[in-house]
């Protein structure tokens, strides 16, 4: 599924690129943000933050996570037709089945916070990939910290 998500992401990027006619290419390179469609996944990633992080074996929201989710809630209020999937993920230092449940708990924690901030529950779905979709491929605490997350993506 992540392949599909990546596929969707690259499709968005292509559309954004195509929407800028070649004839209007400015002499100086435009800022990267100029090609981002407001309300798109790219916009969420670049200007809001698409993911929040958790401590080991925890699903409690840290202050940095709450700050990101606050921004996500505001963004979702602005783009009220956007529905999102929240995917919970874990690092590799747990067992597969338990991590499926832990990822579910993390996704639920993020969704519950967004709901409390006014995002309609009907606009959100959650999914857990356990430890099966690591963002970082290393086996270091730095990689694990990146992989303990809940990632919001526009559906």
């Amino acid at each position: 599924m992540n392949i599909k998500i990546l596929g969707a992401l690259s499709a968005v990027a292509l559309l954004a690129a195509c929407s800028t006619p070649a004839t209007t290419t400015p002499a100086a390179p435009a800022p990267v943000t100029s090609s981002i469609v407001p309300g798109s996944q790219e916009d969420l990633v670049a200007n809001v933050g698409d993911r929040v992080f958790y401590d080991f074996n925890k699903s409690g929201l840290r202050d940095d996570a709450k700050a990101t989710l606050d921004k996500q809630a505001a963004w979702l209020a602005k783009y009220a037709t956007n529905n999102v999937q929240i995917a919970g993920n874990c690092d590799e230092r747990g067992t597969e089945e338990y991590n499926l449940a832990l990822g579910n708990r993390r996704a639920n924690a993020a969704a519950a916070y967004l709901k409390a901030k006014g995002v309609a529950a009907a606009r959100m779905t959650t999914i857990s990939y356990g430890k099966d979709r690591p963002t970082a491929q290393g086996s270091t605490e730095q990689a694990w910290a990146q992989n303990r997350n809940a990632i919001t993506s526009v559906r």
Partner: protein
Amino acid sequence: MIYIPNTSVGRRRLIAGAAGLLAAAPVPVFAEPAAPAGAGGGGQSAVIDVDRARSEPIPIAVPDLGGPDGPSAQLGHEIAGVIGADLARSGLFRLIDQAAFIQAGAVTSGVPNFANWKPTGAQALVTGSVQILGGGQVRVEFRLWDILPQTQIQGTAYTTTQGNWRRIAHIMADVIYERLLGEKGYFDTRVVYISATGPRDRRTKRLAIMDQDSENNRLLTDGSWLVLTPRFHPTRDEIAFMSYANNRPRVYLFNLASGQQRLLGDFTGMTFAPRFSPDGSGVIMAVANGGGSDIVSMDLASHSPRRLTNSGSIDVSPCFSPDGSQIAFASDRGGDQQIYVMGSGGGDAKRISFGNGKYATPVWSPRGDLIAFTRYAGDTSNFAIGVMHPDGSGERILSEGWLVEGPTFAPNGRVLMFWRETRSQDSRGRGFSSRLVSVDITGFNERPVETPTDASDPAWSPLGT
């Protein structure tokens, strides 16, 4: 050191065991007792005597099976090779090198010349012959001899389709194992597992199946969707597993004969960690419930779910005791993840794991005497595979590693398979691997289980019938 269980030993069930083979699927195998040949002198029997402790593998000679023509003899050579490899891999037999044989070539029929076999150090000898019949059929006859007392322990002939020859070899190895060790073998079995390819951040995972000796590998799903945690039905016809089909992670049943999959149950949340009940009539699994998960039992006839736990915590990885009366599962209801046991109808659960660390993936031995588990701390310290008694006593660690996980028992409860991951050496995941491993329940005889790709989530099938 080899631990030999205190089971009864006898020259029993020769015919009964063979008769059961009539039902072998998918390709029928017909077995008949081969006429007894010879009887003989005294000496130490290769058959395990419960009163005689054994600390060495049984030396056994498995010369090529003979045949009346070239193709039959070639098949006889290959069958002997599979039998020998099965027995040697168990760690409980020592295969006598064919170079040490005094009598060259196959020993086809009749009473062997024991004088030729005694000096090789073998205590047991396998002889036999192969005959390719018309219509793609093959007849394989074999005899198992006790060399020192010079007696025939077993004589059986099988008729089957030629393409089924590997299975015949495994069945013969199981007969030899059972006759000499006094407990059922596990060679006529298969392993279902998850085959993994591609980089770690976008792995392609497929359901795969193979014989226990890594032969006849077959992929069952095309990799379109992530799949996890396959488990065998007691009849070996069906597999329960988890699929992310259509982005909805749920438990499915895969029928091996038809290749068809069907969704199990109708739940709003994720369903995962399935296992069949010992009688095959139901499945227990975990069902996401808010931020936690509950153990739910599904009757396969009525498709009615029954919630067995509702703790608000993560209850996961349920597994029935072989008599179906109890369920072991993992839960973090007390804080850290630990193993609990409850009645099969739910109710009070008793914690049984009390060692250092978290305990996961409890799996009940088919013998009922042990629960295997994964133990870990969650940091950079090693994961471990171990066993304990169902009351939590007698914990023993069998294997350790950067990540070892997910034990599954061979149907005789003697061997465990699990998977072992190696640590990524850099940010691109180089050095990472995931492979299957088997180990005796004594912790002895650990060895890799070959697979064509990276592999995880092994589940051992019941013995063929």
